[in-house]
């Protein structure tokens, strides 16, 4: 068993239990999506026009839920000390943590997203694209969110700070993902949004582990 898979299994079991787990995350997402028709009215034309956009805002908010525990628990328990004296560099450890966070939180959301969007009036044909963009966008959410969570380690009110750091950085994927779905539904060229979304997610995977590792080192010293 490689150190990567040893660590991934631990992180996944922690992520699965963190913040109430995937059920709570999906439940929160569903609540956000349900509130919209209650507030703007259920007129079918009005709702279906914004279904994709609302779904993305819900995804971004729901992906914030369990972030505050991503590094904080391990930092306070001393587990970050332990993993730091193991075979993998801290950058890789942080990336593995975010990958587990994606699988436990963002992947279930990606499955729930088409259901919510169609419930709000999106066309059934968009379901595949919604799930795909939510899965790719979730990668960006997990990694950028991880960077925010690591940066907040040294502060007292970490949870609030994470939301403030992370939400602006989650705006581009929300724009790209929402645009891809809206254009697809309207029969317009939609691949640009998907490409930009994927590029943003890949950039997050490539860059944020260095930020996370730096922030963790700073917190540990």
């Amino acid at each position, binding site marked *: 068993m490689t150190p990567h898979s040893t660590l991934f299994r*631990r992180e996944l079991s922690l992520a699965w239990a963190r913040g109430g787990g995937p059920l709570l995350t999906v439940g929160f997402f569903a609540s956000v999506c349900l509130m919209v028709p209650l507030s703007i009215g259920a007129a079918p034309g009005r709702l279906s026009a914004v279904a994709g956009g609302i779904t993305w805002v819900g995804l971004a908010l729901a992906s914030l839920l369990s972030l505050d525990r991503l590094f904080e628990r391990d930092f306070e328990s001393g587990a970050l*000390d*332990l993993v730091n*004296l193991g075979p993998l560099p801290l950058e890789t450890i942080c990336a593995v943590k975010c990958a587990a966070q994606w699988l436990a939180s963002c992947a279930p959301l990606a499955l729930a997203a088409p259901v919510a969007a169609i419930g709000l009036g999106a066309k059934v044909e968009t379901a595949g694209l919604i799930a795909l963009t939510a899965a790719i966008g979730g990668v960006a959410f997990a990694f950028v969110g991880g960077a925010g969570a690591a940066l907040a380690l040294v502060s007292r009110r970490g949870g609030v700070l994470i939301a403030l750091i992370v939400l602006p950085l989650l705006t581009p994927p929300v724009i790209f993902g929402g645009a891809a779905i809206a254009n697809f539904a309207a029969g317009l060229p939609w691949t640009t949004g998907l490409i930009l979304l994927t590029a943003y997610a890949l950039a997050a995977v490539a860059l944020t582990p260095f930020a996370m590792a730096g922030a963790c080192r700073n917190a*540990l*010293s």
Partner: protein
Amino acid sequence: MTALERLEVAAVTLQRGARALLGGLSFDAVAGEAVAITGANGAGKTSLLRAIAGFTRPVSGQIRFLGADGELDADATRREECHLVGHADGLAVGRTVREELVFAVRWTGGDATAAIDGARRLGLERLLDLPVRHLSAGQRRRVVLVRLIAAPRRLWLLDEPLTPLDADSRAHFGEIMSAHLAGGGVIVAAVHDPLPISARTVAISG
């Protein structure tokens, strides 16, 4: 990589906030030797151990790891040869003792069988399937000590290792430390109570 033969702490000064700690502390520890770091609360014992583990960089002075053929790569030595037992035990309270043990032992270079054998030696076999949150402080410490015997590493950095242990466990841990030293290991321990083995004392002042 050749095995660690000697840890050298040369004129190390650390800083916490605006305060300087240790004031140019020097000592070394060779294979088979235990060093007991003593000093008042806040003198910098924990900071020293964390500096040796590479978490804090000294503001001046050097921490070097030496093998038979000269200086070893510090990062690699820390990753492969160094166990740290600190105040925070690093256990996730929601996972079972077995899960946490097997992870920690695998992560530091041992395997699952060694982890379970080690748990047996420390009298933890009945606790293996309990969540960590149900354990007492002493039991949790014993879970951490399993790592030391199940994943062989030369350098043990121990921060108050005896504090939560009962008399039997202390004696048992003394035997484990003696065996480690006999096998060429190095122990640096921050202590208030004397260690149950013979150790050279290095006193630091705040």
